[in-house]
């Protein structure tokens, strides 16, 4: 799946036939990246952060996520599955993690590598980097790819605060490949790793990574796609092998607050849900927090268990995850004295000024003046009938040359009445 990489790949796409041209997604998008044009919702590619909010709210299921079919693993002689911590919270009465892991293996994998293992490594590495004072405080978690992309397009001043460590999924893929190559003697090209993902943003993060040039993950399947299969297979598991090798810290990453709690430092904040995340980022930008060391941000409510590719209600999944974690050891995976290379970013996240009106400051200011004039002349109802989320966004589109003031139906009505009045005079 790496062959079709492009500058703005997105895992969130539109099924034009199913789209009715309503404005649910337009109004909900946190980066104002959707417009209804010619009766269909169009995604402005540069702005989309793949958070999946539009998938969540679309009443016609026209917004979809692209991911790989399970058959994608067939291309590799040696197959490894990477289950996300959020997956563990999807099942009823799961007391023994090994039953789940065994069932995953039975889907056709040679090996299962828990992402939670890598999460514990990342937690350890984060503690190490923070005690060394290597990142500007408060340190912002880099685990949620939708949040990372949001910072990249809307909060450039906060980029130096971003923890320059790869997300657990990336670390897991690297570790799994390295360990499997050493154990089996196979070349890396023969080893395929497949992530079982709770969200579309992770798909994008694999196809178009931010902290490295290429991702070590070979394919991404959706939790909801493998769920029915797993339910069936779990019933067949009699005496599972002892496969679980992560503790409560690693699995804790599946819900909001888990990553922060694993730092063993009380001076943290954990926010979840994209609106709340944006408010926290705004406040961070204004220096409103003075006593914080770490900020954990998850685009989905309740954290990764809230991802749109999951099956279970996010809060129910969170409760289930909590129960599973209860009798696990605290942490089973640790780094040595140094943060290993495979955990670190290869490249820093760069600002992408996609919201600017013009690359030239003077021209941008002229456009802003015109935009404010147009906005003042619009009714201010933010009704969405023109296809833009707000009157301000329509004004912006007009200035950018993508729309006309006549797209406003109230404007149109005024014109018609004026015309009618003139006709009657004649």
């Amino acid at each position, binding site marked *: 799946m790496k062959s079709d990489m492009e500058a703005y790949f997105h895992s969130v796409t539109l099924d034009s036939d199913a789209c009715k041209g309503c404005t649910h997604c337009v109004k909900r998008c946190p980066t104002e990246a959707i417009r209804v044009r010619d009766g269909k919702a169009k995604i402005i590619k540069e702005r989309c952060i793949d958070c999946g909010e539009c998938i969540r709210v679309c009443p016609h299921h026209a917004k979809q996520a692209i991911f790989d079919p399970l058959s994608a693993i067939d291309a590799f002689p040696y197959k490894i599955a990477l289950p996300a911590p959020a997956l563990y919270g999807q099942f009823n009465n799961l007391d023994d993690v090994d039953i789940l892991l065994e069932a995953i293996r039975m889907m056709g994998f040679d090996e299962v590598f828990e992402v939670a293992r890598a999460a514990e490594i990342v937690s350890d590495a984060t503690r190490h980097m923070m005690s060394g004072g290597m990142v500007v405080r408060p340190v912002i978690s880099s685990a949620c790819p939708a949040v990372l992309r949001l910072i990249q397009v*809307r909060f*450039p*001043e906060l980029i130096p605060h971003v923890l320059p460590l790869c997300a657990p999924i990336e670390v897991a893929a690297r570790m799994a490949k390295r360990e499997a190559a050493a154990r089996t003697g196979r070349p890396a090209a023969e080893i395929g790793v497949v992530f079982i993902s709770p969200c579309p943003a992770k798909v994008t993060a694999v196809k178009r990574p931010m902290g490295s040039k290429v991702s070590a993950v070979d394919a991404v399947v959706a939790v909801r796609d493998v769920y029915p299969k797993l339910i069936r297979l779990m019933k067949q598991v009699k005496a599972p092998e002892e496969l679980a090798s992560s503790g409560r810290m690693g699995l804790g990453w599946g819900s909001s607050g888990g990553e922060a709690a694993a730092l063993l430092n009380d001076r943290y904040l954990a926010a979840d849900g994209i609106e709340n995340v944006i408010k926290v980022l*705004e406040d961070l*930008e*204004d*220096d*409103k927090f003075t006593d914080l060391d770490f900020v954990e941000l998850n685009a989905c409510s309740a954290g990764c268990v809230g991802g749109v590719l999951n099956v279970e209600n996010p809060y129910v999944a969170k409760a289930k995850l909590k129960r599973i974690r209860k009798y696990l050891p605290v942490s089973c995976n640790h780094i040595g004295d140094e943060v290993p290379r495979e955990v670190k970013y290869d490249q820093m996240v760069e*600002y992408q*000024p996609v*919201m*600017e*009106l*013009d*690359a030239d*400051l*003077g021209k*941008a*200011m002229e*456009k*802003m003046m015109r935009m*404010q004039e147009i906005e003042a002349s619009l009714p201010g109802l933010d009704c969405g009938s023109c296809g833009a989320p707000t009157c301000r966004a329509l004004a*912006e589109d007009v200035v950018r040359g993508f729309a006309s003031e006549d797209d406003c139906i109230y404007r149109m009505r005024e014109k018609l009445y004026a015309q009618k009045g003139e006709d009657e005079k004649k």
Partner: protein
Amino acid sequence: MHYVVPPDDFTRAGEASSAVKKTLKQIGMNPDVIRRVAIAMYEGEINMVIHAHGGEITVDVAPDRVDMVLADEGPGIADIERAMQAGYSTAPEEVRNLGFGAGMGLPNMKKYTDEMTVESTLGVGTTVRMSVFNHAG
């Protein structure tokens, strides 16, 4: 740009600086300038709510500078020099309980801006003028 800061409503304080921040981002202003303007203006807004029953803010943007005028008809500042000292505050107890009134408002405004003047007359009101320069522009 012109904003009215409503009196005695902490939940709405910060709205004006937030709006200015959004506008400056959209015209592609230097991020460091945006940050300094946002912080200085936010502090000013909070001051207006705590001490002056609200007020009015006018912001002028040019490629090389952002000028802010914060005017209120509050009680005025008795000793401007003292008010400019870090840690000095006349904020009432209930405001301090909210985490405000640490005596860092005016000092921070001074710290984050390139020019700042304070004119105040007791019983008439206070006008703060601040400018942030865009050295890159």
